[in-house]
């Protein structure tokens, strides 16, 4: 097991390096630059700016400087767009926001999704099943860019219960709508995965045995069926959780949370190279970490898997 983890980590490092190199090239291939604006900057001014940010260096040198900065000093450089901030600061400010509502979303999606899925499977082909499936299909069909304005119209404009945006240090009433908007489609997917997985598990031999031993249904479900049912949910959760905690651009923009997704998309539009790189690396590292976590969880839950 430990050697497996070490091996995985050893693979992760070159993966991240490849990610850095690829993003670096792709970024430079995109037309425009961080200092282009409607008013073309005079060449002597542009030369000053490029010198200041080291953009006048050959590309291999820029990349080398960048990678050394990241690896040895954990320094992702200054933002080109927001002059008084470094990328580290941008991430330190935006990531906790996204992490907060992302984790709440993940929790909400898992709890509600699994409950719906289990209920639907146990009461297979009954009104409960149809309702649960209906809710999950509806939630899946409603994308968050439609969901967000609807929530705003109902809870902010109509009822006046919740503020229409902002973050305010993560006060609860600012967090509710982003969580709902972000989690519903994940919740729907989890409900559907849980339902079909549970149906399969309920038909397996060990459940039949458990039932035959005369265990009460509650105990059969919670003690024996739930754990194997969750296996496909967990493999789904790896990338899903990364998606949630690194933020949905749509949710960040709709509710002006100041989260990382908003920085990511705006930095891409502004060609704020260092911010794009910083967030790309963050997402990359998180993806690799969560995939590793999922694999470890798998081994723990499923006795058939051995590393």
């Amino acid at each position, binding site marked *: 097991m430990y050697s497996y983890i070490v091996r995985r980590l050893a693979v992760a490092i070159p993966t991240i390096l490849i990610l850095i190199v690829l993003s670096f090239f792709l970024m430079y291939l995109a037309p*425009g630059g961080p200092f282009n604006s409607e008013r073309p900057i005079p060449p002597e001014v542009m030369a000053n700016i490029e010198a200041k940010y080291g953009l006048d260096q050959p590309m291999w040198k820029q990349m080398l400087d960048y990678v050394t900065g990241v690896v040895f000093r954990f320094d992702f450089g200054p933002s080109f767009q927001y002059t008084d901030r470094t990328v580290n600061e*941008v991430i330190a400010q935006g990531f906790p926001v996204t992490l907060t509502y992302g984790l709440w979303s993940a929790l909400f999606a898992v709890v509600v999704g699994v409950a719906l899925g289990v209920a639907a499977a146990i009461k297979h082909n009954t009104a409960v099943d149809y309702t649960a499936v209906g809710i999950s299909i509806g939630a899946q069909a409603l994308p968050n860019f439609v969901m967000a304005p609807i929530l705003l119209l109902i809870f902010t404009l109509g009822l006046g219960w919740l503020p229409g945006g902002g*973050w305010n240090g993560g006060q609860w009433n600012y967090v509710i709508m982003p969580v709902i908007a972000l989690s519903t489609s994940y919740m729907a997917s989890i409900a559907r995965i849980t339902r079909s997985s549970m149906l399969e598990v309920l038909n397996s031999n060990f459940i039949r045995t458990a039932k035959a031993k005369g265990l009460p249904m509650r105990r059969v479900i919670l003690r024996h069926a739930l754990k194997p049912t969750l296996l496909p949910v967990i493999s789904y959760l790896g990338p899903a959780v990364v998606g949630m905690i690194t933020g949905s651009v749509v949710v960040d923009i709709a509710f*002006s949370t100041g989260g990382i997704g*908003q920085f990511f998309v705006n930095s891409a539009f502004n060609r704020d190279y260092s911010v794009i790189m910083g967030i790309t690396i963050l997402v990359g590292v998180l993806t690799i970490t969560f995939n590793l976590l999922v694999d470890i969880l798998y081994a723990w839950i499923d006795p058939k898997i051995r590393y």
Partner: protein
Amino acid sequence: MSIKMTLKASTAALLVLTGGMAYAQATHPVTGEALADVQEFTYRVLDEHSSTDPGLVEDVSGSEIIRDLFEGLMNQDADGNLVPGVATGYTVSDDKMTYTFSLRDDAKWSNGDPVTANDFVYAWRRAASPELASPYSWYMSLMSIENVDAVIGGEAPLEDLGVEATDDHTLVVHLSQPLPYFAQMVTHSTTFPVHQATVEAHGTEWTKPGNIVSNGAYVLTEHVPQERSVRERNPMYWDNDNTIIEKVTALVINDENNALTRFLAGELDRTEVPAGQFPRLQEEHPNEAISFPSLCSYYYMFNLRDGAPEALQDPRVRKALSLAINRDVIVDNVLAGGQTAAYTFTPGATASFTVPDVPTASMTQDERNAMAQELMAEAGYGPDNPLSTSIVYNTSDAHRSIAVAVSQMWKQTLGVEAELANMEWQTFLEARSNGDFQIARGGWCGDYNEASTFLDLMQSESGYNDSKFVSAEVDSLLAEAKTSDDPNPLYTRVEEIIDAEAPIAPIYHYANVYMMDENLVGSWPVQNVQQNWYSKDLYFTAN
């Protein structure tokens, strides 16, 4: 302030002091209007501002914040006229090349230090320095300060910049050429002073709340990037007694429709109206939906470079395309927010500019269409040989709607097939400046309130002349206008040439279209076409 008004203000103060607080309502010291109890202004901005460093700022929302935090030599009043700021006034030498500003002696920084002429010298040198590498140092060059280009280019030391403090309260500026509108230019945020000790102590972090020292009516108290920026009254400001708004909050809301919802829910005092929604909002909220002219023009530019499609090199074709655009349909039906049809490049709202009566403006649309068809036929295009071209614009619903409408007009009137292509902003800018287009959308807002800020774009050598229109006559007219006492006839001639040769097709002049709290509307400077507003001049009236 008249005696009567002074009395009124002091009576109000007395009432407050004597404990009549619950009943006393403050009144405005000048207008006498009853003021609301809460004087907090919250408005929406589209994007996070680039900086609150006067030397570096390059966007409108950043400049708005900086105009509250810092004060330059001169300010603008509600009508856009120059009024004293840190300077109480200025004198101009006979050759119009030396400006001498006298600074007030009661101006202070928020830490209590006096504001001196040296603070301006430091700030101006810094804004031009290669070390700061400000993307807005070109503004210093536009101001024609002596030696500015050499300083920016690093060929001359900072000390050579033509600005000096002869004593603590006298700032002398030497220009390299006479500039009639120079005093207007010092209302721009790039020219605002900065506090040397603070900048040197904190480096790039000096603009953060807690570090920043500023000399304006407000100080920065909170800044959460991409979410909010808050400024509150500066008790050290020399005119603090006349400031009414206590706190100003800018909220970053990228989506304009969500911003509108939040305005309607009472979270905002001001937001922009999305294109096309003004008539409905005006009907539902007549006191809150407002529209007034701004100093910006929207136009299509034709690519006149060698190697660009030949058809567009023919002035008859360009003129025909321009004539066939029914501007009234675009401003009344597509935008519907109080914008005005444009037949000249310079907006009528520009100071001391008389809109010339160019031929196209005085025709009816039927006459324009008839003339357009004739010109196209003359140029050899018709049903057997239809012209095909393309329009590029940056991604936006409003630009798309306009492009769709224009292409439809061209098709119906002239049989022209125009392909539409939208591009992401940076890609668009690059394509346009590289000449990689046939017809492109353009928009331009005045840097200062004078016609040359628009017409200079038509100069052959101008870096912003993306059409690459070359006309010796235009160049000499514009050069002459720089030093002329009455440049209007020269500007009229330039506009006539633009109308005749059609390097661009002006489409409309922008309007500022807002939803605004009805108690704030009264103090909003709608007559200030540059929209240089100062929170210190705003106030909420009582209901």
